[in-house]
């Protein structure tokens, strides 16, 4: 390629970038002051308490309970991600293939739960799933079961409610990706004699994979930090990492013990982002493009 001659529009572009930076700087300052600095301060406390110490990390990496909690948290997050993908993909596909009016309706139904607080939704699931809850009473009324099913106060209830909360984070990136797949490609496939299912699996599905990866990353990462839902619906047995954080504040009476757990989780999340970003641009995961 030859070097392009200086472009008069380049100066204009630079000025525009400068203006953009000035416009976002208040938001960046807020993030710096309210997120970066406190998180950094907490991380510092995890290694410094009356002198430099790795005690907090030694505990995290040697005591059984931490390992179990991290394993359970990753297990639940993985389960939630798979279920959300299986449930979310058809919804996004449908929203993508129906006329505009219908897709707006479908998407607003997907987004609707956002308007209700996580706490309220956890209690709503309690009302549905518990022993004397709506579902158990209905099933008993129909004589399908004689004893109420244990659907809550365990990992099952936690997963159900978490999927419900995180589903929009799966559907929206999927829908955005599917929107960009040209419909002509499917017609081309069909005109070459491929069956609808073959065009789906050979053309549409591979093209939608960036959306799948984006949605899965969002759901997985958000799920790692869930607190209220497992606390209320886990029956005390489902101890996720976020709950360890709060428990450690009570147990060791210093923030360092808790922030060590948080730092390990944060590093884990960053590692996941690093791996994912090798396959797909981060902008897309975060829904900017």
């Amino acid at each position, binding site marked *: 390629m030859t070097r392009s001659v200086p472009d008069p529009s380049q100066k204009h572009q630079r000025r525009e970038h400068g203006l953009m930076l000035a416009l976002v700087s208040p938001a960046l300052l807020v993030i710096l002051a309210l997120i970066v600095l406190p998180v950094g301060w907490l991380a510092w406390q995890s290694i410094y308490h009356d002198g430099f110490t790795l005690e907090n990390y030694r505990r995290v990496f040697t005591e059984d*309970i931490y390992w179990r909690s991290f394993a359970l948290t990753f297990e639940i997050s993985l389960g939630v991600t798979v279920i959300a993908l299986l449930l979310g993909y058809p919804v996004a596909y449908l929203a993508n293939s129906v006329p505009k009016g219908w897709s707006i309706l479908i998407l607003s139904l997907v987004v609707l739960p956002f308007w209700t607080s996580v706490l309220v939704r956890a209690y709503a699931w309690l009302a549905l799933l*518990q*022993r*004397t809850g709506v579902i158990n009473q209905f099933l008993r009324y129909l004589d399908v079961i004689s004893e109420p099913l244990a659907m809550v106060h365990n990992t099952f209830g936690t997963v159900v409610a978490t999927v419900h909360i995180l589903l929009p984070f799966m559907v929206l990136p999927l829908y955005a990706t599917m929107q960009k797949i040209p419909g002509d490609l499917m017609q081309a496939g069909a005109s070459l004699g491929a069956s609808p299912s073959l065009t789906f699996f050979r053309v549409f599905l591979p093209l939608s994979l960036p959306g799948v990866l984006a949605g899965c990353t969002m759901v997985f990462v958000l799920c790692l930090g869930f607190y209220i839902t497992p606390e209320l619906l886990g*029956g*005390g047995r489902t101890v996720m990492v976020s709950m360890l954080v709060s428990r450690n*504040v*009570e147990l060791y009476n*210093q923030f360092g013990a808790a922030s060590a757990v948080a730092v390990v989780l944060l590093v884990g999340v960053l590692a996941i982002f690093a791996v994912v970003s090798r396959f797909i641009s981060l902008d897309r995961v975060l829904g900017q493009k």
Partner: protein
Amino acid sequence: MTTKQTIGLGCALLGAIGLTGAANAAEQITFVSQGGAYQEAQTVAILDPSAKKLGITINQDSIPDAWPAIKTQVGSGKPIWDVVDTPTGYCMRGGEQGLIEKLDFSKIPNAAAMPEAYRSPYSVSYEFYSSVLAFSQKTFPKGAPNSWADFWDVKKFPGRRALRNHPIATLEAALMADGVAPDKLYPLDVDRAFKKLEEIKPSITVWWTSGAQSAQLLNDGEVDMEMAWNGRVSAVAKEGAKVAFTYNQGILQSTSLCILKGAPNLDTAVKFLNEAVDPVHQANLPLNIDYGPGNPKAFETGIIKPERAAQLPSEPANASKQALMSYAWWSSPAGEAAEKRWAAFMQK
């Protein structure tokens, strides 16, 4: 500025100082409790009357769990709170860690007159509640479980059970279920308690974390029996749910008042501490909420009618059926170790 104006301003300032001096408004404290109906009840029974009697201003704040805040405030070197109402164990642990002021009981005669078990070098009992065995009257119209041994007996008392997701009071209950007498619990045999808990663990449906949750479990019929705080159970019963509880083998617990190290208004805080455990104010507390007075002398004031007293956890006859929690044991190294062991027990 002319001289005349300056003199005028000076007079105004002097006047202002004179006025505040007269109203004693300089004396104030910040008092912190746990909020909700409980703090409202205190405001009526204790805080407002104390402020009036002492001529001070009591600024109120509330927080569900004061302990982390105490740590950060005192750690920062400039606490903004003076007096905190918090579970007694935290006052004692805070005292040992240099976060709580040591009390001079010669300046707190009301506390000095209380039995020794009701105070520590750093704290004074403020109110009593109890971790009791509560049950559904629908499941047990008669022949309800009446002891922790009954709670542990899943054959004789079938039904779903809940315990608190916390070792405090739960280990005591396990030991009583295993036959230890309520007055012979301390020092707790932690190994024995956890062994007994392993036994009941498969039959526990929910390990609850908040008082509200325990109330909901009982109210919705999600469990048939559970350990819960007496005030929570009686509140659910008042709403019409068919639930009841027994004080038999309950674990009598308390919150205490303590003063933050380096409190901004130390002298006023000490004065307030004395006034807050005054038998008359204390006797008014149970008229507003289902908690017992921290000062046992309150029962001698005649303010608490006998039928009301009979409902309260710290009423002498009720108290005699229960185990008095030893916060000294729980804030000892053995107690802290037991607390840490809990998490491993829950996740196994």
